[in-house]
């Protein structure tokens, strides 16, 4: 199907122009024939590269799936206090869990074995938390039509791109689900004497540092607990966001999510990548404006 060496994109080979031309003519002939319109059709948000890579490991996209959830947060949560803001952490957990449940449910409904490339969008507002998940359900080509329960027990969800998923499968691992955790913590007020003594000094604000550590530990513990609940061996590609809330600067939030993975029956496989040394010339950037300057130099 393809030949040639590696292209700029790691792991993809460049096809021949002649091969493309023949394919285009075949496609033009196919489009010249009227085809009776059928009902429905599959949808996918994967790129061409991702479809090719999925095909190379024997998988195919099934349908675009999504999950949404909105959970309430009491306004009193963001008042001054100490320790974790439990109701805010619970609100985030309810929203994420609800959205994930719906995403996986949609995947099972279309007989997908899992969802890859899940885009995660979370909004933490003062009075509610919104979580939106969108991804493409995928399945092994050879097992099209089979129920996921026969193979994995339940569909997995992963925020790995289809490219990373294909690479993960080559290493002998597979995803089992999205692991997630969050914590929101109050930054305690400094005492009057501490505030006065620190005024005008370059000092560490230990109340902020400690709050950040508290939030981080709680969120990371929940992240790992959710992975353990799926019998995962580890979590990869963990995304973290942290910082004070826009509407309550005295509250620190820490959220984390990643893909929980387990080794396959054959265990880990070494990739043994090939070393390549491109022989391209260094790119020369030509600046037309440089000609107007004295001595007009060309930067390389």
């Amino acid at each position, binding site marked *: 199907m393809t030949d040639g060496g590696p292209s700029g994109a790691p792991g993809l080979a460049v096809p021949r122009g002649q091969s493309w031309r023949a394919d285009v003519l075949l*496609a033009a*002939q196919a489009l010249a*024939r009227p085809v009776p319109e059928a009902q429905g059709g599959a*949808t996918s*948000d994967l790129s061409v590269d991702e479809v090719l890579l999925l095909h190379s490991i024997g998988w195919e996209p099934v349908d675009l799936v999504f999950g949404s959830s909105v959970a309430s947060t*009491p306004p009193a949560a963001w008042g001054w206090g100490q320790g974790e803001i439990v*109701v805010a952490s619970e609100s985030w957990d309810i929203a994420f869990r609800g959205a994930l449940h719906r995403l996986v449910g949609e995947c099972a409904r279309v007989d997908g074995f899992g969802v890859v490339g899940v885009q995660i969008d979370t909004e933490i507002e003062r009075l509610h938390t919104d979580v939106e998940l969108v991804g493409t359900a995928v399945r092994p080509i050879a097992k099209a039509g089979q129920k996921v329960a026969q193979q994995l027990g339940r569909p997995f969800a992963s925020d790995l791109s289809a490219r990373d998923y294909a690479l993960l499968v080559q290493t002998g691992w597979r995803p089992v689900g999205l692991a997630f955790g969050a914590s929101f913590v109050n930054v305690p007020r400094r005492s009057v004497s501490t505030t006065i003594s620190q005024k005008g000094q370059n000092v560490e604000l230990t109340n902020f540092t400690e709050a950040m550590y508290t939030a981080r530990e709680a969120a990371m513990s929940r992240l790992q607990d959710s992975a353990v609940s799926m019998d995962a061996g580890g979590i990869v590609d963990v995304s973290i966001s942290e910082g004070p809330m826009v509407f309550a600067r005295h509250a620190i939030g820490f959220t984390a999510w990643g893909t929980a993975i387990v080794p396959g029956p054959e265990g880990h496989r070494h990739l043994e990548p090939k*070393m*390549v040394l491109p022989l391209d010339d260094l790119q020369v950037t030509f600046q037309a404006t440089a000609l107007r300057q004295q001595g007009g130099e060309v930067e390389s």
Partner: protein
Amino acid sequence: MTGVTPPPASGAVGPADAGLPEAAERRLQSDAFSSHLTIPDFGACLNMGLRPVGLVQGFCTMQWAWYGAGSPYLRGLNPWAPSNQYRGIYSESYQCPHAIYTYSNEHRTWGQNYEQPWVEEAWTQGYGAAFERMVTEAVDLGAHGVIGISHRIHHLSDTPVTEFHLLGTAVVVEGGPAPSGGRPWTTFLSGQRLGKLFEAGFAPVSVAAALSSVRVWAYCVTEFLMEGGTASWVTQYSGRQMGQTQWTYGPREVEQVSSAHMAARDLVRRAVRNQLGGDTLHGASIDMVKRELGSGDSVIECTLFGTRVRRFKDFDPMAPPTPTVRLS
């Protein structure tokens, strides 16, 4: 090979119906082609045997009407108002669970999520008209396809007016037959990505696009929760206490709003699926816009774009790619 189709009763006027403006026809008859392809895309197209013949464009400007109180449509004021308008396929009602209490007129005893097909139809009319005008230019050029389509949808100033602008490069397949019905195929892809699509065994058929709009009229529970309420009556739908209503505390999922979000995405997926005719949507891009109108009321709009593709040769997977490490 239909793409984005404006509603039949659109009443669209202008270039799509009257043909191309004279100046446009003169420009398109020029010997030199125009295109918005980058040099790498241009090179890849020539490599595939696609010859650019012209930069084609389509415009449509739509005014958005007021649908609320005082509008001739009486839309949005009362979802149950009698009307001969198409009401869409999605509607959910929510009933107040506080029947044992006496409440004031301000207490929202009902709530509803419903599809707003009049907004969806207007959007489809605007996008569809701009798309058809672009395709008309391509037909005049004798093109077989339009590649690298991009669009811009934006409000003009701060008025309720939206402009749709589509543009792409019309191409001819060297030595290839004209597409079925003489209507060019269309795609968002160009250059190397388009080449890889052909190599994967898929032919681009048409651009697919749709918008869904869902209005949320909050009932008392949704209003209470979206204002930060944490304690309320909850009816158990499963378990030993099924059917019982209990007073519960703590953060809760706002079911009405969550359901509206899911419905908006489902509706736009259905709308695009209806344009596929059994083919596949490739490279979908889904976006959502929420407008909170206060006290739990909101409008949720989703757009979905992608290229409808059709398999033209048997499945032929490439070998698993070889991982490489680049030395520099």
